[in-house]
């Protein structure tokens, strides 16, 4: 029914049919629509202002979509709890430590040899106590150490040298003596 009686009366002059109708709308509106509309419009106004501002400064930028080109890394589920991770590192550190100490001890080991025993040894008695075959086998085994290389000078041929001197001129001999000095 109309609140304005003028409008109601006007309709009734057109036809009494209109008395049977009520001016109500059958359509539904989503809940809270009118409560939220103002906020939505304010946000749109703000967005439009930002667009207009950029349009006046650098319109090209408004043609570029604002989609994010970067991607978040895919979260990998943790395979082990943090405490197990520590155990892993601890075992690794222990292994490295053991290896380092072992290497150090191995390298720092000094071989000691009792040379003083040789000084007090009676060599003559020792040699006499050895059999000939033992000594020969030792000499054979260490031949390279005992036998010196052949450094003998060939026998000088005096005759040949004399004939050479005789055949040479005095000048050649002088030159040889000078060059030798």
């Amino acid at each position: 029914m109309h609140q304005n009686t003028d409008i109601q009366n006007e309709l009734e002059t057109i036809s009494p049919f209109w008395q049977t109708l009520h001016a109500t709308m059958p359509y539904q509106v989503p809940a809270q629509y009118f409560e939220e509309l103002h906020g939505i419009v304010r946000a749109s106004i703000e967005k439009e202002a930002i667009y207009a501002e950029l349009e006046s400064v650098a319109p090209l930028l408004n043609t570029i979509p604002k989609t994010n080109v970067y991607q978040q890394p895919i979260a990998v589920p943790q395979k082990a709890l943090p405490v197990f991770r520590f155990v892993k590192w601890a075992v690794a550190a222990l292994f490295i430590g053991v290896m380092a100490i072992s290497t150090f001890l191995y390298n720092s080991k000094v071989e000691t040899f009792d040379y003083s025993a040789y000084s007090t040894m009676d060599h003559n008695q020792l040699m006499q106590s050895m059999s000939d075959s033992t000594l020969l086998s030792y000499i054979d085994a260490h031949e390279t150490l005992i036998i010196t290389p052949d450094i003998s000078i060939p026998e000088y041929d005096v005759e040949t040298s004399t004939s050479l001197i005789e055949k040479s001129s005095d000048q050649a001999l002088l030159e040889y003596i000078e060059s030798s000095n």
Partner: protein
Amino acid sequence: MALHLDDTSLLAQFQHPSTREKGYTGIVKKYQEKLYWHIRRMLIDHEDTNDVLQQVLIKIWNGLENFREDSKLFTWMYRIATNETLTFIEKQKKRATVSLDQGDGFQDKIKADSSFNENQLIWKLQLAIKSLPEKQQLVFNLRYYDEMPYHQMSELLETSEGALKASYHVAAKKIEEIIKNN
């Protein structure tokens, strides 16, 4: 029912930079429902209505600074809403022509409403209104639902009061006939 300031006070708030936001909010809250139903009666669909109404409210924000009080605020806002809605309908018609769709589809939209009941008089009325030419629909809705005086409607639609009255009477008779014949 919420109490609203009169238009002059709301406009005064809007004109002052420190209370501009408050003034605009007051105007929106005062008229949003009337504007919504004005648009919804023409577009039927809520989503379409929501899109158009948001555009209308943005235009109101942009134009309010230059609003001259030689016309009523309400009439000025209704004009924006009417023009935006008619533009939207025109765009829809062009799209329908391109896709070889028959009719404007409003009858189908009414029938698609979740609470539609073809036996109820209230729904028959909606279907009948939508069978009228657009201008007649507009006049009928403004008078029947919004109870707008002819002089205000005249200012809004820039048509003489006599022509509007005639248009309204013709529309009412047509609707009666349609409902009675169905």
